[in-house]
């Protein structure tokens, strides 16, 4: 009886280790390569040495990368855009979900279905119309009134706040919360906003963490086409657009790896900070990553 169990476990661990390696090798490759000069990097990439910190290692690529592009500025831009979008998206998404789940209003099922239907619309189909719209919208900023949102932070933030996935995650979570709590709070004299703010939100830690991580990753990693379309000034560029600086006449692979290593740090830090809540939430809601 004992032997098959051990064999079973062994197979399982080998498989898990293999999957873990598949996920970790690109990161190892990135970090190791960022320390090698281009020639060695290309030579090593044909063998296992690509994953080993051997040969002529230095931080030269990092110096060169920082010289070539304003990396600090790009990271700050990305973090600002990502964090602002994430916070607003969580706030509005959870409010919307609250109204879908706890308030009684005619047509809410249809509206929710319509919102969820936007899942299947790819960004590419709305890119051009969206560009035309934001180009004609007014804005009052510190520099006064102007028409057109191009070359700004808000053009990279506002279109991404409303998010069907965030709303969906909150709707699913709220549905599982006991309705009695909402009714008890109503009897206690809470306004709907107080019910949201003081009863529902404090109980929503896991789903907030999940939605935050997903939104953060999407905003930080995937913001590429849209910023290229709407931002020409370096001041507002996010990190992914910054990557272009390294694909000019001679592609500097070592510097690219250094750049990627640097911009990965905020993502890892953010994920590690919310990891526990994220995993708890996935385990409890049955939404598999």
């Amino acid at each position, binding site marked *: 009886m004992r032997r098959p169990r051990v064999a079973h476990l062994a197979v399982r661990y080998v498989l898990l280790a293999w999957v873990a390696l598949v996920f970790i090798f690109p990161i190892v490759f990135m970090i190791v390569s960022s320390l090698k000069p281009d020639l060695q990097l290309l030579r090593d990439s044909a063998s296992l040495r690509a994953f080993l910190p051997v040969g002529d290692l230095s931080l030269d690529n990092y110096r060169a990368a920082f010289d070539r592009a304003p990396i600090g500025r790009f990271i700050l831009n990305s973090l600002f855009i990502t964090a602002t979008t994430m916070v607003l998206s969580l706030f509005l998404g959870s409010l919307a979900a609250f109204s879908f789940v706890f308030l009684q209003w005619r047509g809410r099922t249809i509206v929710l279905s319509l919102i969820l239907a936007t899942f299947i619309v790819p960004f590419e189909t709305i890119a051009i119309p969206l560009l035309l719209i934001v180009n004609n919208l007014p804005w009052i900023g510190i520099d006064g009134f102007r028409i057109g949102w191009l070359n700004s932070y808000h053009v990279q933030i506002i279109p991404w706040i409303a998010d069907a996935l965030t709303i969906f995650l909150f709707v699913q979570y709220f549905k599982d919360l*006991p309705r*009695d*709590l909402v*009714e*008890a*709070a*109503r*009897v*206690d*004299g*809470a306004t709907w906003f*107080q019910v949201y703010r*003081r*009863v529902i939100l*404090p*109980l929503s830690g896991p789903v907030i963490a999940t939605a935050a991580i997903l939104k953060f990753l999407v905003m930080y990693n995937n913001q590429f086409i849209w910023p290229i379309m709407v931002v020409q000034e370096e001041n507002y560029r996010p990190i992914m657009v910054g990557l272009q600086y390294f694909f000019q006449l001679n592609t500097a692979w070592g510097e690219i790896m250094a750049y990627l290593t640097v911009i990965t740090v905020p993502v890892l830090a953010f994920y590690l900070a919310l990891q526990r809540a994220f995993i708890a939430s996935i385990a409890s809601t049955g939404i598999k990553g």
Partner: protein
Amino acid sequence: MAEVTLNSVWKSFGSVRVLEDLDLVVPAGSFTVLVGPSGCGKSTILRLIAGLEDGTSGEIRIGGVDVTTKEPSQRGIAMVFQSYALYPHMSVAENIGFGLTLARLPKAEIRKRVEEAARILQLENLLDRKPRHLSGGQRQRVAIGRAITRNPKVFLFDEPLSNLDAALRTQMRVELAELHAKIGATMIYVTHDQVEAMTMADRIIVLNEGRIEQVGSPMELYNRPETAFVAGFIGAPKMNLISGESASRRGCDLLGIRPEHVEVCQTGGEWEGRLRYVEHLGSDTIAYVDVAGVGPMTVRMPGEFNLNSGDLVQLNPQKAHEHLFRASRRIETEL
């Protein structure tokens, strides 16, 4: 203290009609129990009074004021839920004081009233705990404490004891009755358990299929059930309801006789049957008898009787305690 009245209230959920032209008066200061089987509309009535559900039509008054369209918090009510509905992220003190915090009362005043409620409910040592660290009975007390601090005119209880074990339920029954005696507010209590209704209420409203079957004190319902439904619902073990020959001999179509009003005799009984099963409770002996032509009957005898399954027994009803029904309604007998 406030009187609660419902005037011709209708309530439907979609196409399902739950309440039909319901009129109901709950006297100020009474402990009124709404009792009935599942789905009879009793919880709906409570939720309508609380304002958690809107009536399809009709009027609801609390203390003479029309509250039909008012928010729950403006009705002067407090509600204790079956699930307790304690806020899991708040301590006991915060749970009890939540309504007062929302009302922006001064902190000192909140603390005073929370401590007062905690004293009444013996929760003083638990004020800093979270609900998950409390037992069922303690959670129940916190839920009641939350209701007390709001100084409501009317307390609403929605099956508050159904999640407790039998011993705790008995204890909480007594505590609730004492609480009512102490604070004297109007209390409306929903349950499907007729024992809870009999032991706690000064007034019982029996509901069936969205209609009121009978309103009265526990003993009125026990001694003079107006309908066959009430006769069968109130009292444990249930009243024997006999149709056929025995009923028509008395000029009715249903004869009701409570198990404690049937006597076992050696000879000359009205019915003869075979003992199917006997329960010896010490204080009582309860016999289940199969009577030919009548069906199963229950007999309750005070004290201990030496009866065994399979014995043949004669049964005789006490004439003074017979209840006669025609078309499910009580008819008077001249005795």
